[in-house]
C-alpha cells in the first residue's frame, strides 16, 4: 500500500518536473524569439532559413506523394459507400472537407514528426552527448537562441505551408481517381468541391497545423535536452520523441475538432 502511494507520488512528481521543465523551455524560447530581437539582440536568420529548407522544402516530395495517395484512397473508399445510393458526385465534398479539416494537417504533422521532430531530438541529443551544448555555453552563446529558436521558427513556418500544399494535393488525388478511374466529369468534381468548402474549413486546418508545429518542435527539443549518457540515450529519446509527439498531436487534434464542431 505504502509502496503504491509512494509510486503514485513519485510519478506525479516526475510529471510536475517535466511540465515545469517544458514551461521553462517555452518561456526561454519565447524570450529569445520575441523579446530579445526587439531589444536588438538578434535572431539567427540564416540558420532559420536552413532549417526551413530542411523541414519544409525537403519534406515536400514525401508529403505530396503520401497526400496524393491518401486523397485517392479516400475517394475510393467514399465511392464504395456512396455508389450504392447513386451519390458518387458527393465524393468530391467528402474528400475536400476531410482533407481540409482533418487529414492534410494530421498527415503532414505525423510525417514531419517522423522526419523532422526525430531529427531535432537526435541532433540536440547528440550535441549534448558530445559536449557541444556545453561548448556553446562556455562560449557565452545561449543554446536556446542558437539552436531552439531557429528550429522553432522554421517549424512554425514550414508546417502550415506544407499543410496547404497537402490539402490541395490530397484533393487532387481524389480528383484524379474519381475522374480517371470512376469516370466522373472533371467539371462536376470542381463544382462539387467548390460548393462544399467554406473558408472556415481552411482556417480550421491551418489553426490545427500551427499547434501541431508547436508540439512537434517542443517535444523534439525537450527530448533532445533530456538525453543522458551516450549514443544509446540519443536513440531512446529520439524514439520517445516520436511516440510522445504523435500522441500529443492526436490529443490536440481531438481538442480542436471538438472545439470547431461546436463553433
Amino acid at each position, binding site marked *: 500500500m505504502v509502496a503504491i502511494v509512494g509510486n503514485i507520488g513519485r510519478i506525479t512528481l516526475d510529471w510536475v518536473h517535466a511540465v515545469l521543465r517544458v514551461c521553462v523551455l517555452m518561456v526561454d524560447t519565447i524570450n529569445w524569439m520575441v523579446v530579445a530581437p526587439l531589444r536588438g539582440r538578434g535572431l539567427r536568420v540564416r540558420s532559420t532559413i536552413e532549417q526551413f529548407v530542411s523541414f519544409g522544402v525537403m519534406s515536400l516530395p514525401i508529403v505530396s506523394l503520401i497526400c496524393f495517395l491518401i486523397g485517392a484512397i479516400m475517394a475510393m473508399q467514399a465511392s464504395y459507400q456512396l455508389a450504392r445510393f447513386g451519390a458518387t458526385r458527393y465524393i468530391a465534398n467528402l474528400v475536400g472537407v476531410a482533407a481540409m479539416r482533418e487529414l492534410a494537417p494530421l498527415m503532414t504533422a505525423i510525417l514531419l514528426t517522423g522526419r523532422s521532430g526525430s531529427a531535432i531530438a537526435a541532433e540536440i541529443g*547528440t550535441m549534448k552527448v*558530445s*559536449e*557541444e551544448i*556545453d*561548448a556553446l555555453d*562556455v*562560449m*557565452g*552563446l545561449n543554446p536556446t537562441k542558437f539552436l531552439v529558436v531557429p528550429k522553432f521558427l522554421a517549424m512554425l513556418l514550414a508546417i502550415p505551408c506544407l499543410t496547404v500544399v497537402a490539402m490541395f494535393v490530397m484533393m487532387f488525388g481524389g480528383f484524379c481517381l474519381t475522374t480517371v478511374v470512376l469516370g466522373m466529369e472533371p467539371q462536376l468534381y470542381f463544382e462539387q468541391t467548390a460548393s462544399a468548402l467554406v473558408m472556415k474549413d481552411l482556417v480550421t486546418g491551418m489553426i490545427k497545423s500551427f499547434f501541431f508545429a508547436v508540439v512537434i518542435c517542443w517535444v523534439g527539443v525537450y527530448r533532445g535536452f533530456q538525453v543522458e549518457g551516450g549514443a544509446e540515450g540519443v536513440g531512446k529519446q529520439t524514439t520517445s520523441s516520436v511516440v510522445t509527439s504523435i500522441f500529443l498531436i492526436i490529443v490536440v487534434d481531438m481538442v480542436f475538432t471538438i472545439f470547431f464542431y461546436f463553433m
Partner: protein
Amino acid sequence: MANVNDYVIEVRDLVVKYGERTVLDGINFRVPRGQTFVILGGSGCGKSTLLRNIVGLMRPHSGRIFINGQDFTAMNDRGRIAVRKKMGVCFQGSALFNSMTVGDNVALPLREHTKLEESTIEIMTKIKLELVGLGGFEDFMPAELSGGMKKRAGLARAMAMDPEIICYDEPSAGLDPIVAAGLDALIRKMQHTFNLTSIVVTHEMSSVELIADTVCMLKDGRIVEMGDMGRLRASSHPFVQQFLDRRPDEEGEGGSEYLRSLTGGD
C-alpha cells in the same frame, strides 16, 4: 614572473554533489597567473566535474570559486558570460560543431561576440589555426579530421577570443604517444607565448612531467597531495605512490570500492 599574489583562479571549500552523491568534498587550491595547474586522478574521481565548476557549467553545492578575484559562483548569468569570454575550454571529445567547417567553428565566437569585419575574422581564423598547426584546414569538416587534429582545432576555437585562462579536459586521452606529445608541446607553447594560465585535467603521467608547474592529486573527491612534481614523487601517501608506480589495486578491493562509490555509501 608575475606578482606571486596574483591568483587568477581560487577555489575555496568546493563541494559538488550529483543528487545525493558527493563527488567533490572540500576542494581548495589557487592558481597564480601564467602557471599550469594539473589536476590528476583516476577515472571517475571527479576531474571533469571540477573543471565544469571552474568554467561555470555547473553550480556547486557549496564553496566559492574566484576568477581574477571576483566571486564567480555568486554572479548572475550576465556576469558569468563576461567572465567566460576570458576563458577557453578544450573539451575531452573536442566538442567541435559537426555541422560546421573547422574554420567556421573557430570563427564562431568572433562572429557572435565581436563586430569585426568578415575579412578580419577570416584572417584571425587562419592565424589561430596556424598556431595549432592546422593551417589550411579551414574548409574541412570535423568528421574528416583525426583525433589529434580535432583536439588541435578545439584548442584553436578555445583560443579564438584570446582568453587569459584555458582549461583542457584530458587533452591527450585516446591519442597515440607521438600525437599526445605533440599536444603537450602545444600546451606548453600556448602558455609561454601568451602567458596563459592553464588548468589541465589528465591521468597521463608522461604529460604531467612535461607541462605542470603545480600538480594536485584527487582521490575520492578530495585533494590528497598538491605541489610540484618533486613533492609528488616524495609524497608518502600510498595512493600517490601507487598512481606513480602504476600498481594495480589489490585483488577484489577495487571492484567493491567502485560499487560502493556508485551506490552512494561512503
